[in-house]
């Protein structure tokens, strides 16, 4: 039972981590608090659903189409909507408020478009819903895929961020954007790239989640909030932090559900999150330095 709970928790945490990593890039590096993040995911989920049901494409293959799509869409959103706000904001606080308000609007727009196209129905298809046995515990292959993807993306990006000049420039923008031009970094381009990369990760998360979770045009907010919690827990802009915080949350939920009461899983999530915030306001792993 313990092993089953442990593995189930890790697998669930993989989903949370996958969802949160894009947001941590967008908020930590591009400094956009993107409330429409979940809507990006849901859009990707719908795209996967359409490609799967209309064209019969395999959702894994969908990733190859949808992830670049998420990148381009987010790239355009940053260039058109966020850039003017970044330019005009005097300080981080002003940008935070502006980006909250603007992406709140964007959330409604995307949601509205999805509602018009798809209606308010529950969408569900299942893919790779086959058991895989790990150390005696059966987990769904699609959820395992989320965990593997989260680990792969998390570790790869972490290595790129810390071991390459390219990654170091991105971190430089995260920690001191005003100084970045002094070493020839185009802050706008870097931030736009980070935002777009975050969008690509959101799209990847959306596709994977659509394989096993029922979704509607309006369910994006749930993902945004979960992702926000993981991001703050892990430390803003910190990829490994998001990965660890996601896994921890998954374990907490599973253990509470198994050993305490499934009715308290979400209460436990928020309780732990709030306690952690009070104990370490900067998050488990501090700020954006890695």
């Amino acid at each position, binding site marked *: 039972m313990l092993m089953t709970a442990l593995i189930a928790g890790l697998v669930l945490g993989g989903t949370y981590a996958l969802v949160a990593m894009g947001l941590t890039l967008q908020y930590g590096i591009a400094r956009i*608090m993107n409330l429409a993040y979940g809507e990006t995911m849901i859009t990707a989920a719908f795209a996967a659903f359409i490609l799967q049901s209309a064209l019969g494409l395999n959702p894994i293959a969908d990733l190859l189409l949808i992830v670049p799509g998420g990148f381009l869409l987010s790239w355009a959103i940053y260039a058109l*909507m966020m850039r*003017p*706000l970044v330019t*005009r904001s005097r300080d981080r*606080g002003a940008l*935070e*408020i*502006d980006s909250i*308000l*603007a992406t*709140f*609007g*964007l*959330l*409604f*727009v*995307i*949601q*509205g*478009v999805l*509602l*018009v196209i798809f209606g308010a129905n529950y969408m569900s298809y299942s893919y790779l819903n086959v058991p895989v046995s790990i150390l005696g515990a059966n987990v769904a292959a699609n959820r395992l895929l989320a965990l593997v993807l989260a680990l792969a993306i998390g570790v790869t990006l972490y290595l790129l961020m810390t071991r390459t000049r390219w990654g170091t420039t991105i971190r430089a923008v995260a920690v001191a954007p005003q100084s970045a031009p002094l070493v020839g970094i185009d802050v706008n381009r870097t931030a736009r790239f980070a935002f777009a990369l975050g969008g690509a990760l959101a799209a990847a998360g959306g596709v994977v989640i659509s394989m096993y979770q029922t979704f509607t045009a309006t369910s994006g*907010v749930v993902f945004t*909030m979960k992702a*926000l*919690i993981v991001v*703050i827990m892990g430390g*803003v802009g910190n990829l490994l932090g998001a990965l660890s915080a996601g896994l921890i949350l998954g374990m907490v939920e599973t253990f509470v559900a198994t050993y305490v*009461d499934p*009715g*308290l899983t*979400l*209460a436990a999530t*928020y*309780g732990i*999150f*709030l306690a952690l*915030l*009070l104990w370490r*306001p900067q998050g488990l792993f501090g700020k954006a330095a890695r």
Partner: protein
Amino acid sequence: MTMRLAFGFSLAAAALAALAFAPFYVGPYQVGLLIGLAGYVTLSSAWALFSGPTRYVSLATVAFFGIGAYTVAALNEILPYPLVLLAAAGVGLGIALIVGLSTLRLAGVYFVIFTFGLAELVRQLVTWYEVNVTGTLGRYIFMSFGPEEIYWQLLALMAATLFVSWCIGRSRLGLALKIIGDDEVVAAHCGIDIARTKLALFALSAVIITLVGAIQAPRWTYIEPGIVFNPTVSFLTLIMALLGGANRLWGPALGAVPLFLLFEWLSANFPDHYSIILGLLFIAIVFILPGGVLAFVERALAHSKRVTGNAERVREPGTAEARQ
């Protein structure tokens, strides 16, 4: 100055009286509109009471709103109505003090997310309690009074909130809040007890919000966590206050009234494209009116006055330097 003050007050009193008599002249739907308006003006003004000067953006509005509603649902058959309201205010106050004490260390986005998490936590705990202890989830509120009475109560609360807000703005407490909003370190070194000041305002704001929830609850007959802990309430409140300008007495009201009417108009005329239009409007507002409606109005006024004001402005620094 005092003349103007007296004039301002009598004008406000007249407006209040007109609003109080409105239900006799308009239909039930308009009363419903007025309830919504009074509710959101109060919510956003109460929100701005704390969050405006301190710049602590709170998303816990619905936590207190819901607590108010739930208290009424739980007690309406046990206690007389005024006591029910009093109990709601007490519960709100207690929770606000606990939360306030524990969140004083947090700032910026951490406070934002904390308060959001708090609202969800309260919702989960209420749900869990109802499911496991009382064994029911929905509760019924059958009250003997109608929407007019709800409206009058809200209107009175709204007037009280604005009056309190006006008083605080002119008081030492108001200045303390502005200083805290600018720089907490300086505030402490000026001798301000930051913790107590923030706590007092947070509690006051929370109690008002709790009362809004308590007063509005009988309108829905049936209460369940999904209905009263709807996070939209927190977001709307925040956006109305920010839109109007959270640092000014009438700012939140000026954000709440047009936005509320806009929502109403949009949902009536474009039910299918409501979200899209609303979203686009939002984005447009952020781009066209940075700093809120009131700031925009003020800037427009300042612009038209510039011609006369200029002469004065130029002289001031000159005299200062001459004396140096």
